């Protein structure tokens, strides 16, 4: 029994010592695998690529269920919005423009995992915003460097926040 208790305590100590080290280094196999997982989470968050939704409200509803309560975003004009404010604003926009042309909206590129702290991961991407004109032609309307923050809960990674910095590539 003492031996079993000793083993458990050893596991406890090594767990807390590992804490943020995570046995993961930029560029190693685990890092690359997590980067890929989060890139997919990012596409889901943005209803981009294979997660495209033709109805704008469907994407808003998905985000409302995907974002945790503490989610927040700093927009390109420095305005900070909580999850609740984001959902309200996007719902109002979806009522005005209910249909989404494939490829419009935020298109993330160059996704890069920058740091990992246990159940928190921080990444960057270059997001190209696209809109469709009256003829359905898709054009670039803006670009931003984006800090993407993620948190892991019950084994699932979810968006925790974002900061958009206007930029041109």
């Amino acid at each position: 029994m003492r031996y079993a208790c000793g083993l458990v305590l050893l596991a406890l100590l090594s767990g807390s010592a590992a804490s943020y080290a995570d046995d993961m280094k930029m560029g190693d196999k685990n890092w690359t695998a997590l980067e890929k997982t989060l890139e997919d989470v990012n596409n889901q968050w943005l209803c981009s690529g294979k997660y495209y939704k033709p109805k704008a409200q469907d994407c808003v509803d998905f985000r409302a269920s995907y974002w945790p309560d503490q989610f927040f975003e700093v927009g390109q004009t420095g305005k900070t919005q909580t999850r609740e404010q984001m959902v309200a604003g996007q719902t109002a926009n979806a009522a005005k423009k209910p249909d989404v042309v494939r490829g419009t909206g935020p298109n993330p590129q160059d996704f890069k995992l920058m740091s990992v702290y246990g159940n928190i991961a921080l990444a960057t991407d270059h997001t190209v915003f696209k809109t469709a004109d009256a003829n359905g032609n898709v054009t670039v309307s803006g670009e931003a460097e984006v800090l993407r923050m993620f948190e892991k809960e019950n084994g699932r990674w979810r968006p925790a926040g974002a900061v958009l910095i206007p930029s041109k590539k």
Partner: protein
Amino acid sequence: MNKFRIVLVIALMSMPSLVSAQTTMKKGDKAWTELEATLREANLKWLCQGNYYKPHRQDCVDLRAKYWDDQFFEMNPGSGTQTKAQMVAGQTKGAATYPDVVRGEGPNPTEFTLMAVWNNGNFAMAVDHTLFKIRMNSAGQPDFEHSSPGYHTDHWYPDESGKLAVVREVTYARVFVKKNGEWRPAVGASSPRPPSK
């Protein structure tokens, strides 16, 4: 057997990979307000403002090189994403060109707000409204000669002291990690905001 079960439960609760990133702290409660105050102070230390003012720019760079977490990075308009090493190198170069700092010059954080707390209270995300200030010259104009080109602007206004010019304003996301009982900056990311005046 009971003793073993107790130890096992404690061990499982303590393993970071098995617990959620959520925390029991709620916005506005006592623990939240206290943490916000602690991080506001950490933010001032990071920026060498208030009690942490350093008249020699390189002293501030040296403090940051120790204070920033190893994984620290920063994202700012015009300079993209920079790692800790790149930030330290760039600021060291800047300190060689502009070695002296007038009290209050540089980034001045206001309206610090704690937005989210994760990892059982060991990871925190906040935002502030940062005003970038530079000294005025004898003609009452911003002294662009003694400030980094990044601060040069056509639009400026004097701060409340009348001795410094506000040349840029941003919303800054300030992200902190707690390690060995100390809160340290993990990420900074800023987005420009319209001038207040």
